[in-house]
């Protein structure tokens, strides 16, 4: 038995992490396969337009998110104005709102027959028909990007605010004493120091936008995701779907690589404890700041919630159905199983890095961390391919032995869905578990071992009790992500099986969200839980 050389843990970690990368490897293999007619056909006809749309969409989402997030983050971190404390966490509320839900709500609101245009017409006493006056159109790529940015900007806001706060005051103050104005100091010191954080946030948002299916589909904006769905669900061609998915994945990886290369040897680590004296805004500035924050919260959360509640009340009889209960229960069950598995794997990965200082011990953790930047549509295709490949070979093998082939025993089952969730949200659990472990002094491990306990005993009697809260948080966060996840669920769900998200989406695409308003509110409520948790951990210690 060798405690200092924990081979068993290392091997187990490696095996599990290999399972987690199977979908990406399968995707890679499949995408190198020979061109199918469908892919060639897509390539010759619509794919160029789709690529242009996708690039446009991602670019616009990033642009809008930056416009929403950075000024807010800076205001909250650096300035003092009325209700700053409240806005600090209120600005994160839109995170709980699915983009396709607000897409539906704003379309409804801003349509020709919607309340906004109706009241405009009545104010101007105009009895005009549709198309006889100009009113901006929301169902296009700009609208889709706006909807996505409205619910995605909080990721960037959160990460940028933290980064601004962590810089502390000293560098900024040094810059001021060297003769630069506050604005110049912000531009030349604060902002560049935040760059790595901002880029992380943007890449994450970009991957989300790239993987979005529901919003763009609802707005009839054809992107690469549309092509993936059409290839698979419409034409049953995994090969074409794989090729397009691979292209999407490579573009995310490419962006990451460009950023790394451009950053070069610069390092940005800076932790300062010096507290920033916040800029005191005057009345007019304060008013502007409040208006800005309020606008984002209203648009991203309050207005949509009010409308959802209105729908729910008006259509309560239709909305509250037995089937909703069933969907809710199976969603919860599914998400819970995935969350527990993900957390157990996270404990395995992180504990392995704690037991062994070798670089190879960190590989499983690092590999699984990357999953978060893989658009979920891409991941779902990868899962489908790997399952199909596995099933085909098992079937062929059994047939060659003279048995009855079992058919599709993995894809199209809940197993595929859980597997996709675990891969997709491994990074979430890893992050939480890693920081929980970091809070436990390594000398406790050594003390426990020298007192005669094995690694497993130490894990269960020392670490687990000490990180109860972290374990709970990890399970909770993954659980909620699974409840909200749509693109992967749409592609992988078994026949006639709905999660809360696919259930709501069904009504969105049938133009009857009113009937599923209760379900949508449940998703929003579930999404609020991590937001509330973030506000608790993110509070400044005042």
């Amino acid at each position, binding site marked *: *038995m*060798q*405690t*200092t*050389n924990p081979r068993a843990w290392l091997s187990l970690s490696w095996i599990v992490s290999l399972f987690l990368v199977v979908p990406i490897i399968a995707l890679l293999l499949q995408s190198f396969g020979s061109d199918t007619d469908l892919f060639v056909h897509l390539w010759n006809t619509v794919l160029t337009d789709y690529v242009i749309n996708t690039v446009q969409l991602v670019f616009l989402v990033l642009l809008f998110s930056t416009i929403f997030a950075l000024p807010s983050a800076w205001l909250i971190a650096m300035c003092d104005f009325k209700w700053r404390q409240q806005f600090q966490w209120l600005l994160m509320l839109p995170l709980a709102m699915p983009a396709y839900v607000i897409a539906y709500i704003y379309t409804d609101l801003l349509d020709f027959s919607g309340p906004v245009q109706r009241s405009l017409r009545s104010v101007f006493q105009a009895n005009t028909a549709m198309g006889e006056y100009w009113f901006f159109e929301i169902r296009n790529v700009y609208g889709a990007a706006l909807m996505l940015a409205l619910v995605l900007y909080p990721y960037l806001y959160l990460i940028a605010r933290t980064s601004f706060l962590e810089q502390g005051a000293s560098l900024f103050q040094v810059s001021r004493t060297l003769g630069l104005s506050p604005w110049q100091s912000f531009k030349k010191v604060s902002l560049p120091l935040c760059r790595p954080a901002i880029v992380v946030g943007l890449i994450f948002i970009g991957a989300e936008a790239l993987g979005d299916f529901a919003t763009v589909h609802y707005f009839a904006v054809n992107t690469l995701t549309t092509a993936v769905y059409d290839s698979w669900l419409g034409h049953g061609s995994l090969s074409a779907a794989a090729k397009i998915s691979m292209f999407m994945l490579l573009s995310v990886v490419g962006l990451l690589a460009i950023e790394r290369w451009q950053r070069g040897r610069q390092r940005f680590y800076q932790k300062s404890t010096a507290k920033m004296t916040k800029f005191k805004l005057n009345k007019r500035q304060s008013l502007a700041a409040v208006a800005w924050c309020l606008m984002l919260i209203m648009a991203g959360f309050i207005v949509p919630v009010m409308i959802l509640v209105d729908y729910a009340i008006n259509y309560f009889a239709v909305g509250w159905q037995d089937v909703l209960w069933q969907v809710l229960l199976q969603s919860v069950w599914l998400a819970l199983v995935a969350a527990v598995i993900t957390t157990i794997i996270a404990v395995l990965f992180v504990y392995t890095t704690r037991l062994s*200082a070798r670089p190879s011990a960190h590989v499983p953790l690092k590999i699984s961390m990357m999953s978060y930047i893989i658009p979920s549509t891409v991941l779902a295709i990868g899962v489908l391919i790997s399952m199909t490949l596995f099933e085909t070979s098992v079937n062929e093998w059994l047939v060659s032995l003279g048995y009855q082939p079992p058919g599709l025993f993995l894809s199209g089952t809940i197993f595929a869905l859980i597997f996709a969730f675990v891969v997709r949200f491994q990074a979430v659990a890893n992050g939480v578990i890693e920081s929980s472990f970091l809070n436990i*002094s390594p*000398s*406790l491990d*050594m*003390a*426990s*071992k*020298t*007192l*005669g*306990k*094995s690694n497993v005993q130490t894990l269960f*009697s*020392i670490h687990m*009790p*000490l990180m109860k809260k972290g374990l709970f948080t990890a399970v909770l966060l993954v659980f909620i992500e699974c409840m909200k996840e749509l693109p992967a669920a749409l592609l992988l769900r078994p026949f006639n099986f709905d999660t809360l998200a696919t259930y709501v989406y069904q009504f969105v695409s049938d133009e009857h969200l009113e009937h599923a308003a209760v379900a949508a509110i449940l998703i929003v409520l579930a999404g609020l839980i991590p937001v509330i948790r973030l506000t608790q951990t993110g509070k400044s210690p005042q």
Partner: protein
Amino acid sequence: MNEFPEIALSVDELSVFYGDNKVLEQLSLKVLANEILCLLGQSGSGKTTVLKAVAGLLPLQYGTISIGEEIISSVDTVLAADKRGIGIIFQDYALFPHMTVLENICYGIKEPKQQAELSAKSLLELVKMAGYDGSYPHELSGGQQQRIAIARALAIEPKILLLDEPFSNVDHNLRQQLMADIRQILKARNVAAIFVTHNKAEAFAFADKLAFMEGGKIVQTGTAEFLYLHPCSAALAESMGQGNWLDVQVLDQRRIMSNILGEILSTKQHGFEKGQKCRQFIRFNQLAISGDDTGSAKVIDSVFNGENYLCTLTINKTILVVNLALAQKISVGDTVSVTVLPHAAILFDGQ
């Protein structure tokens, strides 16, 4: 009676690398039964790594570690940390925060619960912490936590106890008492110990024998007094007590010539060749000054350090520092003469 003292632990030619970085190189040491050995050295010299290797908490690249006759670590076989019966005490005490004092001490005891608690309670008395059974670690002071850590480590009846900077987080006023108590407990229980510190006062007060580490090697082992008087390296000389460096030339086995202090006598033969140019280390308390208008030195600064004065002098543009008794009245600006008090000269190669 055994003619040779029993060896509790021996480390032979131990090498440990972190990646390409050699942390320990061919290090050997022996700890006798019931002996407290102090590993003294600056941070980064590899002291803590020795402890971890002995405890079985990291792999070694070369050499062996044995307890008594039994080899517990070699390149091929490493007895797991939980099978060694070596106790270890950490700088941060490493008490399990979610367990009470009693649960902490019982953690390693492999006896039925009731018996374990009885043993734990007698250990609590031993470390003068009776009555704290139900307290949680965060309710105790640093010194109290360290006492509990000692009790917990002793609970597995180790043959050897390893202590990693155990007193550095303990309040200065409590430190002397804690050190005396723990030393007494170790002696009474017949436990050998390796104790790591960078603080020479702790080393002097706690250990029987000192081993000085430099760059992953032990450069000298001996009693505190011996290392103080006959250090074999410049770093060791400096860490045992402050002093001045002088450029000198050897006249013969007992006489040395310094161009600022003149001829210096050594009470012992120093072993350097006649005519060789050396660097001599003279401690502040090996020099004396007296007011003398014809003297060659001038006092440029004087600082009270709690027990006496530290006077800074210039002689021929060279700076010297000298200890001065409280009673001796000398002021800044005075001209003085310097005498070297009789001692065994500490000389090193080169200038």
